[in-house]
């Protein structure tokens, strides 16, 4: 009998606690004087780098808008923008962004910050990519193609995937075959897959730094201008539907391009990794 009473009590406590948690979430909102919410569609690499967790509270504090961060690939984020499912986009696929603006889905795109991509592979580099092309992305890709080295592709229209495909295009090559693995997964998952298969892949530096400690991989190619990774912000055309928070979106765009926030971005990562993960480059106003 006692055992049953104990279990009932345990369950009752859990149920009551979960109700409290629900109420507590409401109370937090009142404390920060929230005036609304915006939906930010961004990339998994931006979220996985941890940058947003650090800088977004500053935005909420300054403007009173909460941010719902939907992290998907740049391709899907841009699609969400086309459909009016997001209020503002923060992505890293410059050509797709320019097309987005040209098609009238957004009034304009603005540079926010940049970092770079790196080609990573097993520490002992069995395919000799580092020896052959430590600073030349196209040469590295050409060797991977010629030697049919296992390569994992994001294959999901993300910014990283678009960059990877642009390098293949510059070489005039179309990768296919057992060695070219089209995973359709996010950057973290692809790095794990690359580690498991002891292959090579293209990654943004921030996600790589976050995950490198748990893998047996290392950078084989970096520092090529082809590996430049530019992030941009765009508000979605508010005429698409009645739910788009136009004021909040513009507030976000203004905030992320402001000098104070640009400074915050430039500081992110120094404490944990010794160097900044992103270099802010919004145009001076």
């Amino acid at each position, binding site marked *: 009998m006692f*055992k049953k009473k104990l279990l009932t009590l345990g369950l009752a406590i859990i*149920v009551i606690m979960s*109700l409290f948690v*629900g109420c507590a979430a409401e109370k937090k909102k009142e404390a920060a004087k929230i005036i609304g919410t915006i939906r930010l569609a961004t990339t998994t690499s931006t979220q996985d780098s941890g940058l947003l*967790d650090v800088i977004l509270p500053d935005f909420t504090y300054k403007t009173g808008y909460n941010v719902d961060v*939907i992290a998907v690939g740049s391709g899907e984020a841009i699609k969400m923008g086309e459909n*009016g499912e997001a209020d503002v986009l923060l992505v890293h696929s410059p050509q797709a962004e320019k097309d987005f603006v040209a098609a009238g889905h957004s009034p304009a795109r603005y540079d926010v910050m940049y970092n770079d991509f790196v080609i990573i592979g097993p520490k002992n580099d069995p395919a000799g990519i580092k020896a052959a092309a430590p600073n030349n992305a196209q040469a590295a890709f050409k060797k991977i193609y010629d030697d049919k080295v296992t390569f994992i592709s994001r294959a999901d229209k993300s910014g990283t995937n678009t960059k990877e495909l642009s390098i293949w295009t510059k070489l005039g090559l179309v990768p296919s075959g057992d060695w070219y693995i089209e995973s359709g997964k996010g950057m*973290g998952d692809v790095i794990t897959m690359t580690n498991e298969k002891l292959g090579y892949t293209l990654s943004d530096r921030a996600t790589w730094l976050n995950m490198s400690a748990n893998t047996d991989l290392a950078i084989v190619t970096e520092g090529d201008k082809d590996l430049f990774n530019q992030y941009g912000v765009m508000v979605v055309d508010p005429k698409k539907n009645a739910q788009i928070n136009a004021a909040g979106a513009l507030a976000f765009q203004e905030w992320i391009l402001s000098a104070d926030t640009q400074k915050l971005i430039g500081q992110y990562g120094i404490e944990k990794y010794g160097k900044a993960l992103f270099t802010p480059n919004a145009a001076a106003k």
Partner: protein
Amino acid sequence: MDVIAEGFKAAIALLLKGDAQLYEIVGLSLGVSLCSVAISTFIGVPLGALIGTRDFKFKNALLRVIYTLMSLPPVIAGLLVFLFIMRRGPLGSLELAYTPTAMVIAQVCLVTPIITGLTYNIVREKADKVKNIAVTLGAGKFEVLKLLLSELKIGILAAIVTGMGRSLSEVGAVMIVGGNIKGKTRVMTTYIAQLKSMGDYSTAIAVGIVLMVLAFLINSFLYNYQQRDERL
């Protein structure tokens, strides 16, 4: 083996530390699951009992549909609900996408057929016997139904707990309609998936342990309740 051992050690440490984010996530998981199972029970139990005690023209077709829906793939439920509630969808103006409400709706779609189907089966077996006895004692249609439900309490409770298990462990639907948004729609299952993809195995194991312990507690409660009633 190292990674797993390290993971467990870090998991215990995290749980004892009382991480606020973890409690929020656990609370939301329970809230969404309890809510959706409650709604599904209110719909599914009377519906299952009704179908079990009556004969009507399209009964066989309806049963086939219910049995199929019992194994409805969660991602399909999630996709369908999302297509309705997204801004471009017919219910877009309700602004339900990426909210816990949407998660409850999707889970109700998944759990109601399960509870309905299981209740139907339990009722079908015992319905005639109970009905005959009840009618000889002078019960009306509504009273027969009430008596049926009270006699078959244990079986129906088992159906509800099955539904609870399904909703607690569900990932696909809540990921699609909820979006795993920090502080808003992040539940234990979507959090575990995210942690794995970020390579944070120790926190993933910690959350997994919490999930399993909660499932154990809920099922232990039913087991004890069942045992007590049998002893009577």
